């Protein structure tokens, strides 16, 4: 019952976002600001984890592939496919749920608790359109870009680790990358990235926008938004794999 009413409120929030901006220029400015906050703001952590996850997958794959019958270049194929299919979209988005999700939820929560949202409403501004919409659109644009970046950097990290640890030379890794490449995997990863971006931004915006109480509640709902987004990402991950692969 409680879940249903919460879900209804969530849908109504999304529906309420679609209204005509009072002033297109200010909305654009807010949107660009959010792109910088969300996209550029999480660039560092994405670069770091993607390089390392690629490196680790090269090392671990070679550790598990002991058979002399399989050529070394298969390591590159495996690294490529796991990074594109799972690591770049899912792992990165789980981390982003923490980074971006808590940022969105606590920003909106703070504005709610200190009556800044009410102040905007009183001026005659639709705060769902002005505050929530730019965050969601910015996430939908920047998160998939971050995921694509993570794919590239992940593979690069694997290539680097392969030569650094003496597992396989760069030329062999590159040869492996070209073998049996399925472009559909990238499409699938992008579908996942858009889905996860929607989950992260809308859920954290919902928990932040509807905070009631004091600063303690802001912390609580930002934690809740991270947990709920992560669970939803994992469920969606499974559902998409079952449906589309």
């Amino acid at each position, binding site marked *: 019952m409680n879940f249903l009413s919460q879900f209804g409120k969530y849908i109504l929030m999304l529906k309420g976002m679609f209204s005509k901006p009072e002033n297109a220029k*200010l909305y654009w400015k807010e949107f660009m600001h959010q792109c910088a906050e969300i996209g550029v703001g999480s660039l560092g952590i994405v670069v770091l984890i993607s390089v390392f996850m690629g490196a680790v997958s090269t090392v671990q794959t070679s550790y598990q592939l002991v058979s002399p019958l399989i050529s070394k270049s298969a390591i590159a194929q495996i690294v490529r496919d796991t990074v594109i299919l799972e690591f770049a979209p899912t792992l990165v988005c789980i981390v982003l749920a923490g980074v971006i999700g808590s940022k969105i939820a606590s920003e909106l929560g703070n504005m709610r608790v200190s009556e*800044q949202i009410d102040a905007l*409403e009183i*001026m*005659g501004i639709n705060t769902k359109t002005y505050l929530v919409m730019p965050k969601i659109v910015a996430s939908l644009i920047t998160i998939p870009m971050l995921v694509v970046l993570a794919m590239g950097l992940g593979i690069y990290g694997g290539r680097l680790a392969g030569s650094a640890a003496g597992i396989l030379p760069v030329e062999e890794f590159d040869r492996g990358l070209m073998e049996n490449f399925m472009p559909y995997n990238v499409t699938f990863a992008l579908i996942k990235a858009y889905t996860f971006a929607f989950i992260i931004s809308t859920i954290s915006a919902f928990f932040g926008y509807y905070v009631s109480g004091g600063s303690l509640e802001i912390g609580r709902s930002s934690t809740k938004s991270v947990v709920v987004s992560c669970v939803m990402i994992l469920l969606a991950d499974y559902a998409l794999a079952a449906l589309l692969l």
Partner: protein
Amino acid sequence: MIEFTNLKKSFGEKLVLDGVSHVMETGKTNLIIGTSGSGKTVLQKCLVGLFEPDEGEIIYDGKNFTEMTQDERKLLRQQIGMLFQGSALFDSMTVQDNIKFPLDMFTKDAHAAKIKRVDEVLERVNLVGSNKKFPSEISGGMKKRVGIARAIVLNPKYLFCDEPNSGLDPQTSMLIDKLIAEITKEYNMTTVINTHDMNSVMEIGDNILYMKNGKKEWTGNSKDIIFSDNQGLNEFIFASEFLQDAKNMRKLEAQGKVDQNGDIKK
């Protein structure tokens, strides 16, 4: 003029507004007074639609606010300025950007014209030169004044102030009251002020609504209040012995029982 009838609002079991009716007059400072927790903030938020009343009707100059659609309310709200009890400044923006925000959103003026208007209202609230400070860098009283500046920057038709002078020293407090009263007359606004500051009541109380237990207990102006024999009101406004004395003096004065030297006639 804002007219409301039989407003009721409860939170769960707790009945906060129990059928309040009153008329807030144009060109006057309309005060809502009452002890802490008597529902002043809730009443004001119902009037602007931040809370939906459970029952009752609110009319803004003949237009029924209760029946308006969201879009109609949005339009009306562009004529409303509001100062929140906690100021509610945008803490990511400087003082100047806070005040300029409504101008940016709703006018097409040139940048220079907006800055000029910002400086104008900053001067009115005695805050010249604070343009570049952030809300976290200024005192509570200054925040209040920035809040007022932001509320009046678009020359609203309706001004709501929730405790504009709580937390201010008596002198600044007086200044703010005078400022609000002045602009109310100057622009013929309908101003609604929540307060439990007895100085404000006596100085700018054109039309006072005294609330108790969610009901309208007394109404009148600052002159009537001296002659009121409502015990609750008397205990609330003239809480200290000093204020009781001051009130009795005023009463005698009004009755012509005091001579030029301030002594009581025999």
